[in-house]
């Protein structure tokens, strides 16, 4: 059901702004609308943007600290640490975090400083690493690296390309500059590292000669020792830096026990931010403030109770025609998980029909028909609640998992009907391990086995399609009647149903069925062209509407995907079972069976889940929704305490 929405306009004393905002936040039932600033004297939006910026900065500090602690702080310090900080809060205990905000910020700031210091140390270590890498080729050179000249000779160092002809260059050099020596220090894949010693006066001649061979000079002005000494020094420096990092890490670990605390305060700051953002949309005068918002009709009583303790004036009115009203779906416990499937498409427009419950039933049934396996169904029905328990997923994921749990139950039922127990696992074991004959083995299916009875299964899936589509059309008729347009309901939807009923009847009892179908067709021809102006236009448009039968047919055939997916899933499972039992009834065979069984069925389950999920959704969105659904509703997002790390006890949220 789509909840009725009321427009709320509230005027209260400026002094109460904080406590009213807070109460509304905890009520989680009011969506604040941006103020429509009127150009009147003395009316202005309550500007809280500077406060918002400040609190966002604080939130950033806290979240950086949390990230650091998540990586480096050990998860629990079991011995002697402070007791773990509360995870679930009531409204009171959550608001008490206010007085501890500064404490948390101080700690977070410290963690952040340490983390930044470590980042700086790490880049220093990187620098050392690069320097060591650059120096390594010169390790064999046992003169100080910075030495570039002696009393009468100069030394230069540098690299030549790896394919340079060093002996040749050496001869060439000694021809040009008397007494010059070239020596190789080391070489790697790209370069030969050389030094050259020569008389001070020959520098230009020598460099010119070397340059011809691709020489590039390297200078090591900053290193005073020999290469080996320098590398040793750098390594020591690195060790010191690493020690500092370790020291810092152990400091961070001391804060590990504060992680929960900092996370909670982060959540608290988040709620403060939410309040500031609410206020940012209020209109303020000197002594009062005005607030506009949306509230679901069922929450009005709670609102009145809340506001009775304030001196204030408020007005609740129905939305005006053409106004964009946010949509809140309220459904039973069974149906609400399927709201996630609706949300993936689009919410229905306000004031139209919420199909969640009906769609939920079809979703579960079609999903089950595609999977049709007791084993897979059990895995889903047990696995999804387990995931919810262990992972504490966010609300939307939780809903999806709950929907999958229900689909799992439907899968189990279909599995019993069609005899899927990890496909035909019991059958293969009985035949291949215990020599049961294929014929005498009683069929495991309660209804029939789709692999043996293809046609039966195809007809069943198409029948499901017919029910699904007719339901969609009936919803359309219901919507039209609710709008008071009975004529359209009877002739736009009803005549199609009559036509279908006739076609259906023809299969059983042709003489009567034929005439029912003709009546349906005539109803269409006579009414579907009623928008046209001329008689001829009316006739041809009416006639043309019969062409839509093609669309209905293609929609119907689309349901054969249930057949295809269901059957191929069952057969893939069967192949895995045959493969598993190939090795025979012995120890090796048993091990092979386990490996192939687990691997094969996990693979098949994964494939089946994806295809069941996607194709079932598609059948809802296109074939079902196409008949009646009016999309484009904006989901209702009430201001509320949204926590990232902590849990707020359910009763606190409602109070």
């Amino acid at each position, binding site marked *: 059901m789509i909840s009725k929405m009321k427009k709320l306009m509230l005027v209260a004393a400026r002094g109460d702004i904080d406590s009213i905002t807070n109460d509304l936040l905890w009520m989680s039932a009011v969506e604040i609308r941006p103020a429509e600033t009127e150009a009147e004297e003395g009316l202005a939006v309550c500007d809280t943007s500077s406060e918002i910026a400040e609190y966002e900065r604080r939130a950033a500090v806290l979240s950086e600290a949390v990230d650091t602690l998540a990586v480096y702080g050990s998860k629990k310090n079991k011995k002697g640490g402070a007791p773990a900080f509360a995870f679930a809060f009531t409204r009171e205990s959550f608001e008490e975090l206010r007085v501890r905000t500064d404490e948390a910020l101080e700690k977070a700031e410290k963690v952040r400083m340490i983390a930044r210091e470590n980042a700086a140390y790490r880049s220093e270590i990187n620098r050392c690493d690069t320097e060591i890498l650059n120096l390594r080729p010169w390790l064999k050179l046992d003169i100080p690296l910075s030495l570039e000249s002696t009393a009468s000779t100069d030394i230069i160092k540098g690299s030549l390309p790896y394919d340079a002809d060093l002996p040749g260059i050496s001869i060439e050099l000694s021809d040009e500059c008397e007494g010059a020596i070239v020596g190789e220090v080391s070489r790697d894949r790209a370069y030969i590292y050389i030094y050259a010693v020569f008389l001070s006066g020959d520098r230009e001649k020598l460099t010119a000669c070397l340059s011809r061979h691709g020489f590039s000079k390297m200078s090591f002005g900053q290193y005073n020792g020999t290469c080996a000494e320098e590398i040793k020094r750098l390594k020591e420096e690195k060790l010191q830096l690493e020690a500092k990092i370790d020291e810092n890490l152990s400091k961070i670990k001391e804060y590990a026990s504060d992680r929960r605390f900092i996370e909670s305060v982060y959540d608290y700051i988040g709620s403060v931010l939410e309040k500031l953002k609410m206020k940012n949309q209020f209109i303020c005068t000197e002594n009062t403030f005005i607030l506009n918002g949306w509230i679901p009709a069922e929450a009005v009583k709670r609102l009145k109770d809340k506001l009775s303790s304030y001196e204030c004036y408020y007005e609740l009115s129905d939305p005006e025609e053409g106004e964009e009203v946010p949509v809140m779906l309220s459904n039973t416990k069974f149906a609400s998980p399927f709201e996630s499937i609706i949300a993936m498409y689009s919410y229905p427009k306000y004031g139209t029909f919420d199909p969640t419950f009906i769609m939920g039933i079809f979703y579960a049934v079609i999903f089950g028909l595609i999977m049709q396996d007791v084993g897979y169904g059990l895995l889903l029905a047990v696995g999804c609640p387990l995931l919810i328990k262990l992972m504490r997923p966010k609300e939307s994921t939780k809903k999806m998992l709950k929907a999958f749990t229900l689909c799992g139950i439907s899968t189990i039922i279909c599995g019993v009907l069609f005899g899927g127990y990890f496909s035909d696992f019991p059958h293969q074991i009985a035949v291949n391990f215990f020599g049961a004959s294929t014929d005498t083995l009683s069929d495991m299916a309660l209804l029939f086995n789709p692999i043996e009875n293809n046609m039966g299964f195809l007809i069943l899936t198409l029948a499901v399609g017919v029910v699904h589509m007719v339901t969609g059309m009936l919803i359309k008729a219901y919507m039209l009647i609710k709008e008071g347009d009975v004529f359209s309901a009877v002739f736009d939807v009803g005549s199609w149903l009559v036509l279908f009923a006739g076609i259906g009847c023809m299969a059983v009892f042709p003489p009567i069925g034929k005439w029912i179908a003709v009546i349906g067709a005539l109803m269409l021809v006579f009414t579907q062209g009623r928008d046209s102006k001329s008689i001829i236009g009316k006739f041809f448009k009416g006639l043309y509407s019969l062409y839509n039968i093609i669309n209905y047919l293609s929609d119907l055939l689309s349901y054969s995907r249930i057949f*295809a997916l269901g059957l191929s899933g069952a057969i893939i499972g069967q192949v895995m079972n045959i493969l598993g039992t190939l090795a025979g009834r012995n120890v090796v065979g048993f091990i092979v069976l386990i490996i192939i069984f687990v691997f094969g069925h996990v693979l098949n389950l994964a494939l089946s889940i994806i*295809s069941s999920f996607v*194709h079932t959704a598609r059948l809802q969105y296109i074939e079902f929704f196409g008949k009646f659904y009016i999309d484009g509703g904006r989901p209702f997002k009430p201001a509320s305490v949204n926590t990232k790390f902590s849990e707020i006890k359910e009763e606190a949220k409602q109070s």
Partner: protein
Amino acid sequence: MTTGTIIAIFGAAIAAFLACMGSARGVGIACEAGNAVVAEDPSKSGKALLLEALPGSQGIYGFVTAFMVLMQLGVIGGTIAQLTIEQGLYYFAACLPIAIVGYYSAIAQGKVCATGMNILAKKPDDSIKGVTAAALVETYAIFSLLVSLLLVLNFPG
């Protein structure tokens, strides 16, 4: 072994190798795109893996079809059937849908998955929509697998 049997085995072979080749290319295309996303943000590797694995299913379908044919021929666990040429051609034809559609749909799906990586990179919360799109391509591989399997399983003898 008769010529017919050999033709049937040829059918099984092309079902397996064409579909697997398609999957190899499809997964390759998806992985190339996926690695770029993971390089930026390694925490997305899980979701990237889902998209990368999707074009792999055609290979499985080809394998399943080939396996069913080999089972029926008695190549696996039994005595090899002696087929006439017509019977061999029947199996060969039965293998064609998944072989050819498997090949092309895996590549097409790989491309969809590669663009799905963009969704993963820019709007990670919506990445499931990329999976949904890729699964639509899968439909046709499943239909062709079904045709192949129905033909193989309902071999008139």
